[in-house]
């Protein structure tokens, strides 16, 4: 699905080196995208200021267990007597943190691999692409489950696993973009003037694949956030007692949802809102970066 959507965006894109600024300015005309951006900014603020905003510790068991929402615990308390609101607030740190860092590393890795593969071509390209084929033959979640099981459950390992999981798909798309870019005359011209491969890549090719990279990032951030949550939900992600929206929805907590539904509602709603905001922003960015889609809006 990722490949699909990005494939469309790859072809279209007059690029400037500051490709990121243009789209952000155009966002004014996209109310839903604007909404997404505002929510994301708020979430980032909440995540950064968690210790100041959260009323209590997310880990200490300060209260009566399974207390329904009240003035002192707005989102109620969980089965261990922890404040659900505080856990949800701290959960934003983890969710955004893991989502953003793993997309950063994954896309960076994918860009390097894809550029090398596409630009150099030949045997290197063939070998890399067969490896990518192999990785893509795994159902994504199952691959990640195996990697986290191999590495052990920790925040760092979840980031590593998700980053690795994002590399093959990203590299394939970047490779396609690089392939269509590298035969353009301006690259040829620079080569004739004696530019080295590295310089060609950095100065000429990469700036022109910024648009697909932005699109990939906009699709992958919500995807990575969901993957972290799914892994933690299955008990293969972030170990307890670290507050994670996914982990709080899984494991033994599930036995208490019937009597304490707030334990299930709030972390899930926070996670959905985050993903929704990223999706809305991503849709708007794709709209702006891809004139072909824009025609559909009329």
């Amino acid at each position, binding site marked *: 699905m990722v490949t699909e959507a990005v494939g469309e965006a790859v072809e279209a894109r007059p690029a400037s080196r500051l490709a990121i600024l243009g789209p952000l300015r155009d966002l004014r005309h996209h109310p839903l995208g604007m909404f997404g951006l505002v929510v994301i900014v708020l979430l980032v603020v909440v995540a950064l200021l968690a210790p100041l905003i959260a009323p209590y510790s997310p880990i200490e068991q300060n209260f009566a267990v399974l207390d329904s929402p009240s003035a002192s615990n707005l989102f109620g308390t969980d089965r261990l007597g922890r404040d659900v609101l505080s856990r949800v607030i701290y959960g934003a740190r983890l969710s955004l943190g893991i989502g953003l860092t793993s997309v950063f590393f994954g896309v960076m890795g994918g860009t390097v691999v894809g550029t090398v593969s596409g630009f150099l071509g030949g045997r290197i390209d063939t070998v890399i692409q067969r490896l990518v*084929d192999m990785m893509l033959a795994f159902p994504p979640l199952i691959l990640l489950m*195996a990697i986290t099981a191999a590495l052990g459950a920790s925040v760092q390992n979840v980031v590593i696993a998700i980053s690795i999981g994002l590399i093959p798909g990203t590299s394939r798309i970047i490779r396609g973009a690089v392939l269509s870019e590298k035969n353009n005359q301006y690259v040829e011209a620079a080569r004739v003037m004696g530019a080295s491969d590295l310089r060609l890549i950095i100065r000429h090719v990469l700036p022109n694949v910024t648009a697909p990279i932005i699109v990939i990032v906009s699709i992958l951030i919500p995807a990575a956030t969901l993957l972290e949550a799914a892994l933690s939900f299955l008990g293969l992600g972030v170990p307890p007692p670290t507050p994670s929206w996914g982990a709080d929805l899984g494991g033994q907590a599930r036995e208490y949802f019937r009597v304490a539904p707030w334990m*299930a509602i709030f972390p899930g709603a926070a996670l959905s809102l985050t993903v929704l905001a990223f999706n809305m922003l991503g849709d708007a960015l794709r709209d702006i970066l891809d004139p072909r889609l824009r025609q559909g809006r009329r």
Partner: protein
Amino acid sequence: MIQYILRRLLLFVPVMIGVSILTFTLMRIVPGDVAAIALGQNATPEALEEFREANGLDRPLPIQYLDWLAGLFRGDFGESYFHHSAIRDELAHRLPVTGELMIMSVVITLVLGIPAGVIAGVRPNTWSDYVTRTTAVFGLSIPNFWLGTLLILLPAIWFDWTPPFGRVSFFDEPGKNLVQFILPALAIGISSAAGVMRLVRSSVLEVLRQDYVRTAWSKGLPERTIIWRHVLKNGLIPVATLVGLQVGTLLGGAVIAEQIFALPGMGLFTLQSILGRDYLAVQAIVILAAVTYAVVNLMVDVVYVWFDPRIRYA
């Protein structure tokens, strides 16, 4: 055509060998001694040694790999360290469960996604378009495990109704079986449906601009005929690809849905096997998943020809 299929199948071979090596290696890096987990903490060193020997775990890794690969070709996946049964039998029980779940979620994907996409695409920028598109963004954003949780939790709170957990065979109690599968299938199918909806919408929009559609209008054909005969037939081609690509996601979703709804299928087996370091079981599952994925996507390419006679594979 036959030649094309054969060539594609031949291309599977190196990829599958790669996948098998990758899985094999990955499972051996997993920390945790399978013998210690299988026998419990109080096992004596001698018992551990015996277990390793009995299961061939003391041999060099390349030998273990080749042995396992040879078994695969005979349809022998080896023996589960924990269930003490042949993995093949385990799979035979579990495949139908996940198969049914997959089929139902693909049906949900198509039944919800295609009509919604058509409704949105035929009348762009009307309220029906906005409603379906907004619903789709929500559908894409709601995590399947939360949706699954809510599908159990909300009826339980509001109507004091819980779905019958576990799984009865469709042939014994068809009604109960469908109730058991519809909720998990919804939980994992909604986001795919949202994806399909968006694709159908943009595809319908594009087809509506084609010359032959204008011709159909000017011939005075009724809208229904145009939509069904001309727009849908061409607009649905990319949907096949999308659904093919989504099979991998749906398989991942099965792990989650089976866990939530206590369905004894492949997904639950995957989770248990990974947690239990049941090497051979995990290897079997991953190979099966990769083969399924590859075969489904080959089928998609074949179906293309049927959808679109212009496409020919040399």
